[in-house]
């Protein structure tokens, strides 16, 4: 398996036919991690022993004939999901030694389906970042070019899948944290609608934006996993009880006669080469019989500023629980409670997290709430309305996932605003709570770029269908890092 990546669907077939065992798959995955991860830094924790034990159990289950289709396939969990008995760090010094007493719903459901976690992937600290450089455990390297960022915040998951360490890894997407690293690492990244997948056990960044997602090689694999993790959870008040449709069945639908909306604003100032890759992708859809229509998102320039008010505001409050008392890092030698708080939080959190806490505290504070937070909530409605208006005309919105291919590590660390602008195409889906996917659609300067598809609320099936149909008629998702097939 060394130089070849297998999709989940392929692994499932290999397991079912008996061509390979779960133990062999898991050992191969662990061997790849061993060989590559000292360079990539995609994992924070590798759980080789428990993974191999689980693989043996999976093989026994299969021998007895009671294995599920995905039983015994090794995967990885973003280190933002709580995993009972295994460290959950959120890539922060604050949680360096934190062991969760419980499993997140996503983890619980993937475990129940027999998937085997080989470890926890690196990420931006508390998911705050677009480059993976804010991790307490160091930046992840892009498998296409180790001098470049894999994107963030689910950079470790994206790099691990792109490099073939695992066929699939979980991610979370608050402003693009699944789709952007998927685009920059040349893989598929799917974020379902807000409310489709339970947030229970997913350490909160911005509660009204966070959504669990999937990083995989294909839309088909994303559908397989979404099928398992989506659906009602009584432990999350914001999780919908709408029935989960059969995503696999929906993949095969034809897109002929369907309408794809392309917001003209997406191309204002977009890199020419990126624009060309997008147009080539649109041509594929035209050949499949879909219609490409110009649509408008007049408030697009406001999306990132809105996001950078709402998300830090919620984060500043969500992160108040890290006070050194009940769990997490605690500063030594504090003489009084105020010093305990301040020393613990100043040492436990990294710079970007502190910056966002400060920004969030500021926009909620007396005298500024109306001008920033309340105003941002109104603009959020404006942006959501713009999206809804597009969906009156078209079935799906298409465009670039990112303004550029992967940038160099260190290139944007000194200018937070430049870093934030990476999220220009992705944040609107979070603000409006919509499902979105990024699929590889070309190379620019030898680096992958992604095509983003955004659908209406709870139209996961349509988004996955459009992505799958594209992948049936393109090969970009099969390119290995470096550009070879």
């Amino acid at each position, binding site marked *: 398996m060394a130089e070849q990546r297998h999709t989940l669907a392929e692994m499932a077939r290999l397991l079912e036919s008996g061509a390979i065992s779960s133990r062999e798959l898991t050992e191969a995955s662990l061997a790849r991690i061993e060989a590559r991860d000292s360079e990539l830094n995609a994992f924070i924790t590798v759980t080789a022993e428990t993974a191999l034990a689980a693989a043996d159990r999976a093989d026994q289950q299969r021998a007895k004939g009671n294995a599920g289709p995905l039983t015994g396939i090794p995967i990885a969990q973003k280190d933002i999901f709580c995993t009972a008995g295994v460290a959950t760090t959120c890539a922060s010094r604050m949680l360096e030694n934190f062991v969760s007493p419980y499993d997140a719903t996503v983890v619980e459901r993937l475990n129940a389906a027999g998937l085997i976690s080989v470890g926890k992937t690196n990420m931006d600290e508390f998911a705050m970042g677009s480059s993976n450089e804010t991790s307490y455990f160091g930046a992840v390297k892009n498998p296409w070019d180790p001098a470049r960022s894999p994107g963030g915040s689910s950079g470790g998951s994206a790099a691990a899948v792109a490099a073939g360490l695992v066929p699939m890894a979980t991610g979370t997407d608050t402003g693009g944290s699944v789709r952007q690293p998927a685009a920059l690492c040349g893989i598929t990244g799917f974020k379902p609608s807000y409310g489709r997948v339970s947030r229970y056990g997913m350490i909160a960044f911005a509660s009204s934006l966070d959504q669990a997602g999937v990083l995989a090689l294909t839309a088909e694999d994303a559908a397989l996993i979404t099928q398992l993790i989506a659906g009602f959870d009584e432990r999350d008040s914001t999780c919908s009880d709408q029935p989960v449709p059969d995503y696999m069945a929906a993949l095969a639908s034809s897109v002929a006669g369907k309408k794809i909306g392309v917001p003209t604003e997406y191309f204002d100032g977009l890199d020419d080469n990126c624009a060309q890759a997008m147009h080539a992708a649109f041509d594929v859809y035209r050949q499949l019989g879909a219609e490409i229509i110009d649509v408008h998102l007049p408030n697009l320039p406001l999306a990132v500023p809105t996001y950078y008010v709402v998300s830090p505001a919620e984060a500043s409050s969500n992160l108040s629980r890290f006070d050194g008392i009940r769990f997490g890092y605690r500063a030594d030698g504090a003489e009084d409670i105020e010093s305990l708080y301040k020393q613990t*939080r100043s040492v436990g959190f990294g710079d970007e997290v502190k910056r966002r806490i*400060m920004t969030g505290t500021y926009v909620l504070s007396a005298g500024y709430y109306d001008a920033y937070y309340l105003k941002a909530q109104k603009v959020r409605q404006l942006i959501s309305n713009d999206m809804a208006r597009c969906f009156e005309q078209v079935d799906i919105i298409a465009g670039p996932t990112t303004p550029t291919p992967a940038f160099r590590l260190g290139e944007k660390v000194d200018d937070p605003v430049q870093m934030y602008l990476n999220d220009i195409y992705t944040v609107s889906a979070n603000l409006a709570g919509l499902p979105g996917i990024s699929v590889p659609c070309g190379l620019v300067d030898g680096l992958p770029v992604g095509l983003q598809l955004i659908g209406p609320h709870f139209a996961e099936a349509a988004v996955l269908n459009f992505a799958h149909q594209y992948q049936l008629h393109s090969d970009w998702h099969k390119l290995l890092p470096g550009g070879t097939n």
Partner: protein
Amino acid sequence: MALTRKDIEYIAHLARLEVHEDEIPAYTDKLGKIIGFIDALDAAETGDLLPMAHPLNMSQRLRPDVVTAADQRDVYQQNAAEKEGGLYIVPRVVE
């Protein structure tokens, strides 16, 4: 809007973050840039739009009033830095 040293100190205190003297210039600079960036919202025409607090158009679900949690204090307190006799311990809080 430019942020002053006083602003930084006030926000840092509200957020219980320690800002050392030598960090103040970096904070005023970077936070200033961020605030300048989000000031773009000011120009948005939002008319009488209602604020959107949440992307889900649902109402709060209610759970039955049933005790479902068993005592797991010892497990939960394994993550605590200091505990004694079942209590979480902090430096003296003056009331």
